[in-house]
C-alpha cells in the first residue's frame, strides 16, 4: 500500500522532506518500520523512533489505512 508519512526534526533531514510517500508491502506499523529501515538506515541510529497514527503513539501491531495521518516521531526534546 501507499502511505504518506509526515516527518519532523532530524527525520525530515534524513528523509529529505516534511512529507514522504512510501510504498510498503504489508499494512502494519511494523511493515512501515521495516521499509523505513531499508530505505533510510540512518533512522536506526536514532535514540528512538515512534510512529504516530492519527496523532496517537501507535504499537507495531497496529494496521494502517491509506487515509490515516501517519507521522514519524524521532526523540522529542521540548522544554
Amino acid at each position, binding site marked *: 500500500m501507499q502511505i504518506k508519512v509526515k516527518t519532523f*526534526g532530524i527525520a525530515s533531514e534524513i528523509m529529505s522532506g516534511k512529507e514522504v510517500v512510501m510504498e510498503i508491502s504489508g499494512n502494519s506499523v511494523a511493515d512501515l518500520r521495516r521499509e523505513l529501515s531499508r530505505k533510510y538506515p540512518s533512522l536506526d*541510529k536514532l535514540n528512538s523512533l515512534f510512529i*504516530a497514527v492519527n*496523532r496517537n503513539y501507535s504499537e507495531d501491531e497496529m494496521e494502517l489505512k491509506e487515509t490515516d495521518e501517519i*507521522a514519524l516521531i524521532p526523540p*522529542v*526534546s*521540548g522544554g
Partner: protein
Amino acid sequence: MIELTDKFIDVSKIIEAAKHPSAGGLNVFIGTVRDFHAKKNKRVVRLDYEAYEPMAVAEIQKIMNDAIARWDIKAWAISHSVAKLLPSEIAVVIAVSTAHRKASFEACQFIIDQLKARVPIWKKEIFEDGEEWVSAHP
C-alpha cells in the same frame, strides 16, 4: 489553555489564565535558553523549535488530564515556543494553581517532566561551529 506560538510567550497572560479565586498556590515553570552547553563546552547561538502541532496539543491535554486526576488543580495554562530562540529567551511556560502550595509544585514538575518525555516538540541547537538535534543520537 494550551498554546504553541512562534511569537514571544506572554508570561503574564499565562499566569493570569492560571489564577483562580479558590487557589492559594500558583506554581510557574519557565524554561529559558541557556547560553552555554556545558557537556559540549560550546556557546549556544540559537535554538530552533519545531512541533507536530495538533499532536503536541493533544499530548499536552493528555498530560493535563493525568495531572488533574492526581491533584486538585483549580486552573492552568501552558505555552510552548515553536520559534527560533536566542539565549535567555523563553521556550516554555507552565502555570498551575491549586488550593495548597505543595500540590502546585508537584503538579507543575510532573507536567514539565511529562512534556519533555512525550510531547512531539523538537529543538535543534545551533552552535558557532555546527548544529545538532537535541537528544536525537546516543
